[in-house]
């Protein structure tokens, strides 16, 4: 909100002994050692002695079947605890500043492996199946995050991603049922773009507070789609029966163990999303368009002075973002569920917003955050099935907790574009 209220303690070096980076290294060192202790006591000593955990690394109809990794859960947990403790001690002793987040990510990955070994001790579970559902779950999250990225990089906050996804899913369902798949996909993108235009129009032409405009789009989308679903779709049920889009197996690549079923045996939505991430990264950081969009998001006045049409850039970016959200909505409706249900997005647009922030307003960050959040969802399902006694609700909470931790700057602060959410008034 304000310079004063937002001033982090780290902004006053005179009062703190350590630099923010050193403080962060200390915090992460402590976190790693705490993880090591948990792994040692709970997953190591807690696992039945000599129990073998088996991770299945192939699916039944893969090219290479029967791949698996069987290990002694306790021994592996002990090794991981040792590695975590070593990493943590190194952070603390030297107050290491470099690679802090990479080390933390690596440590968390090891922690998850130890946890899964403990949970699966004495039984087996499909590792590849979980990774595959992670990728599938990450697609809408990533697309939602990329929507937000397009808008926020140009300085328009988009809280309405959820509403865009929901409306697009609704339109995709009806058009696909009536006129075929492609009509569904294109119509969904069009309506996503239309809602993007509405957001930009309200935010730019009328200077409605962007958060309010987004909230209203969400409420409007939920109300209208639910209204039409119970009034139209319940009467004309053939409009709620789109053909499910089938997978395209990419030759050769899909035969690679683990990676094949994870990435190369999906509907085209997933390939397009992965390509889109790369394209957006290039476009944002290597093209004139990207430079202009970013300058409008960081300092619209300077951009205006240099002759960039701030409003035009904002309109264009928010509408492009809407097209991406529409694509995500089509994926939900046509590839995931293949019918429309009231409030079928169930908050996934907000996870997308979280992924945008967690991914620090970077395209590959959005993808990585999408994968991490998708993984926590897949993990929650697995944990419920394995019956570890750990409530799956806590796994489902993780994306949101992680985002709060990131915005609070505990482990490295995420910085939004400087003019994000502020109306620009030509003067």
């Amino acid at each position, binding site marked *: *909100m*304000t*310079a*004063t*209220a*937002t*001033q*982090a*303690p780290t902004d006053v070096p005179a009062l703190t002994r350590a630099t923010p980076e050193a403080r962060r290294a200390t915090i992460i060192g402590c976190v790693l050692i705490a993880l090591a202790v948990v792994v040692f006591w709970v997953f190591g000593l807690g696992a039945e002695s000599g129990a073998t955990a088996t991770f299945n690394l192939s699916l039944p109809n893969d090219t290479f079947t029967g791949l698996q990794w069987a290990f002694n859960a306790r021994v592996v947990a002990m090794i991981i605890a040792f590695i975590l403790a070593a990493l943590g001690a190194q952070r603390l002793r030297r107050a290491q500043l470099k690679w802090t987040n990479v080390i933390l990510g690596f440590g968390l990955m090891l922690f998850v492996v130890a946890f899964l070994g403990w949970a699966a001790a004495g039984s087996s579970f499909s590792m590849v199946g979980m990774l595959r559902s992670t990728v599938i779950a990450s697609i809408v999250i990533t697309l939602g995050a990329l929507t937000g990225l397009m808008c926020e990089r140009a300085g328009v*906050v988009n*809280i309405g991603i959820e509403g865009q996804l929901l409306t697009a899913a609704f339109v995709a369902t009806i058009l696909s049922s009536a006129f075929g798949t492609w009509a569904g996909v294109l119509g969904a993108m069009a309506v996503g773009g239309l809602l993007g235009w509405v957001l930009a129009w*309200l935010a730019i*032409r*009328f*200077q*409605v*507070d*962007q*958060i*309010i405009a987004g*909230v*209203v789009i969400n*409420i*409007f989308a*939920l*109300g*209208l789609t*639910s*209204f039409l679903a119970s*009034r*139209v779709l319940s*009467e004309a049920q053939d409009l709620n029966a789109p053909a499910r889009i089938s997978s395209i197996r990419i030759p050769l690549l899909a035969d690679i163990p683990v990676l094949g079923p994870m990435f190369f045996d999906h509907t085209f939505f997933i390939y397009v999303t992965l390509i889109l991430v790369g394209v957006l990264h290039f476009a944002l950081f290597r093209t004139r368009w990207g430079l202009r969009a970013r300058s409008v*998001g960081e300092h619209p*006045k300077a951009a205006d002075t240099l002759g960039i049409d701030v409003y035009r850039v904002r309109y264009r970016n928010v509408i492009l973002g809407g097209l991406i959200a529409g694509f995500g909505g089509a994926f939900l409706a046509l590839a995931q569920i293949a019918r429309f249900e009231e409030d079928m997005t169930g*908050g996934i647009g*907000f996870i997308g*917003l*979280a992924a945008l*922030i967690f991914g620090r307003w970077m395209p590959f960050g959005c993808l990585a955050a999408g994968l991490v959040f998708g993984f926590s969802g897949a993990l929650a399902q697995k944990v419920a099935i394995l019956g570890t006694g750990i409530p799956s*609700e*806590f796994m*489902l*909470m993780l994306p*949101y*907790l992680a*985002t*709060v931790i990131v*915005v*609070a*700057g505990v482990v490295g602060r995420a910085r*939004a574009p400087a*003019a*994000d*959410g*502020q*109306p*620009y*008034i*030509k*003067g």
Partner: protein
Amino acid sequence: MTQAPPAPEATPPPPPPPSAMDTAAGVGSSLLRSLVMPALALVVALVIGAIIIAFSDVNNVPLLFEDPGAALSAMAREVVAAYKALFVGAVGSVYAISETLFAATPLILASLGVALGFRAGLFNIGAQGQMLIGAMSAVWVGIYVDLPTPLHVLLAILAGLIGGMVWGGIAGLLKARTGAHEVITTIMFNFIALYLVQWLLSIPLFQEAGRNNPVSTAIRPTAQLSPIFGGSYRVTLGFAIALVAVFFVYWLLYRSSWGFEFRAIGLNPQAGAYAGMGVATAVTLAMAIAGGLAGVAGANQVMGLAPYKATTALAGSVGFDAITVALLGRSHPIGVLWAALLFGALKAGGRQMQGAAQIPLDLVVVLQALIVIFVAAPALVRAIFRMKGVAEKPAQMTKGWGA
């Protein structure tokens, strides 16, 4: 309103002709404007709603091509029937009015919280989560504490207040200490609260014996809010509590020194800090009180409604409706009261409309969204009605999270 000019470029917008600051428009016209604009917004929303009703009828739309006259009159009949039911269900009888007040009760409480936040320059999207946590705190007191009626009710409401205060206060504290934007954190805390409550409702501490789904044990009869007008009307003491809250927030904002600090910081935090105000404390406290009010709204959802059990759906859409109500009520306690009564009436009428005219209740949600968008963009309404007048600057409730 909570106008915090972000940067030098914050001069009045181009579409309405530049003018003096809108606060300079005078007291009389502002009263008129605060009544006329919402009324016009309601009219436009109802017209659009009528179009939506008319063109979503699967029988009438095809008929339009065969016999336009018959189709149009059938559509008109349907719209009239729907809006008649909406009106009758909202204010057409004592029972209808009681239903309106019943629906307005949680809205008043939660919206006061959002409005208080706006006044302090904070956008609290977290009413939904604060309601859930407040409700669970009240439910715990309702199940486990053994007290006679008035004390038990008071203690449970107090628990709801404290639960909501803690949940909202965390977001305020994070904002004050680390600068984490409250819009982001409160959205995240909504989901964290949802999963937390879902878990709480699945452990023996709360879950009703013999249940597999997340439903709590019913609270004791001593903790239930009793109906004001007898058992056949659903308005409870909760409505009285909501009215007390209206006066409390009014007193807090306009008659107390804390309220003065909230408003000063909401208008210009730098100036507030320069004047020696504790911005961090005020931000935390404002979010805590906002959360507490939502928490009481949550407590009301369990204590004032049979079967007096908590579920994850107890907040319904109240947390988000609260944002719209606060905007419609221009973040003023009295305005919020009227706005909540209007939305309560729409909700009560919407149920009648669903029952009597078979128009889904969701239409009311669409109407609410439309009303708020027209209130938030007065230039839009002005353009529709070809009105001239003082150009009004739309309120920026938040600073972006880039700064």
